[in-house]
């Protein structure tokens, strides 16, 4: 298992597109990415500009606020993922949101985004998500109502029943319900995915 905490990531050669309707919130993310060494960062405020940049430039990662154009951000992500002819279809997408209710995080996940990060974005949280995407490349899954990173994780040792992969032992994939999730709780979801919360 690669240790994210002890390894460096090199984002100097990567291009980032920040789609955030709030320029100040966008500038926070922009500054953090600059601090991490990124030099190619584009900021946009509308879906139209986002599409234009994706057409004109090679973007390696999209960071998008669902509030883009009155809450149409997630629909836009879904449209990217569902279009088989879209060259950005499998591009890593981070949803950056202030709305951390469980239902909102679930909606962000279900639109096909790679990860969700809560606002206000902290350098540590953003670094960990970039490292997670870098160290854990995943195949995509295509289903009737979903196209996005494969969210199933191989699980071993569970005693009851078989999992959804042929080599899984079980598939405990119940959706959590309840109040809003804190950044720590979102992080815990990540840790569980990384291997049993270690």
């Amino acid at each position: 298992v690669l240790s994210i905490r002890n390894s460096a990531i090199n984002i100097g050669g990567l291009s980032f597109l920040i789609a955030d309707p709030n320029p100040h919130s966008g500038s926070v993310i922009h500054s953090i990415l600059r601090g991490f060494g990124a030099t190619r960062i584009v900021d946009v405020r509308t879906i139209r500009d986002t599409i234009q940049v994706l057409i004109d430039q090679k973007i390696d990662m999209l960071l998008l606020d669902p509030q883009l154009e009155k809450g149409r951000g997630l629909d836009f992500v879904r449209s990217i993922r569902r279009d088989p002819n879209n060259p950005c279809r499998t591009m890593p997408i981070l949803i950056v949101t202030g709305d951390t209710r469980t239902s909102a995080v679930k909606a962000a996940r279900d639109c096909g985004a790679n990860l969700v990060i809560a606002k206000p974005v902290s350098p540590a949280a953003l670094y960990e998500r970039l490292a997670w995407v870098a160290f854990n490349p995943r195949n995509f899954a295509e289903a009737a109502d979903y196209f996005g990173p494969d969210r199933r994780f191989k699980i071993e040792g569970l005693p009851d029943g078989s999992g959804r992969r042929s080599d899984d032992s079980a598939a405990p994939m119940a959706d959590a319900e309840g109040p809003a999730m804190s950044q720590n709780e979102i992080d815990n979801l990540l840790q569980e995915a990384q291997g049993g919360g270690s």
Partner: protein
Amino acid sequence: MSTTRDKFYREVPVDDNFSKKALAKGGFTREQAIRRAESALARLEPDIAKFIYSELKRLDGALLAARRRDAGHMANIKDAYEASGHIRDVADPTIYSLLSFITTLLCRVIEISDGVSMAYPGEIIDCFADALLLVQSDEYRKKTAKDLSDLTTALEKTVVAVEAMAGKLQKQKPLGHPRTPDTPQLPQH
């Protein structure tokens, strides 16, 4: 290669350009990267502070107008939500402890109400308006959320109350039902 398991599902291998580039030699370790990002954010802080101040003025104004419960009530709440969301989204909780806390919960109250098309709980939103005015006063300006645990606990309880109202309403009507005209009564604590 794609692995077809049934007609509704298949795995699609991805050419992972991001991963390849990010794992190339060079770059920064976590600690280095975070330190550099914090320096970059420190340079941005005066602009952020100015923005938070202007959104706070807007939020105070919208909440004050919302107290009137007139025809513009919903528009005032929407305006308050936007300003509160702007503050929530940029206010570092370590610097703006109370502001971050209050605006996060205020947004949540409005989001919960919107989620079930419930009338905005005016009395609760007034509590948030009062809390915001309080934490801007000279006496409280430098206090943190930890210093004012009575206030923060009370505000958290109001969110629990709104969640309970929303839950009750959701059981009574199907989703998508038009917003109820009457403000629900606060439960007694």
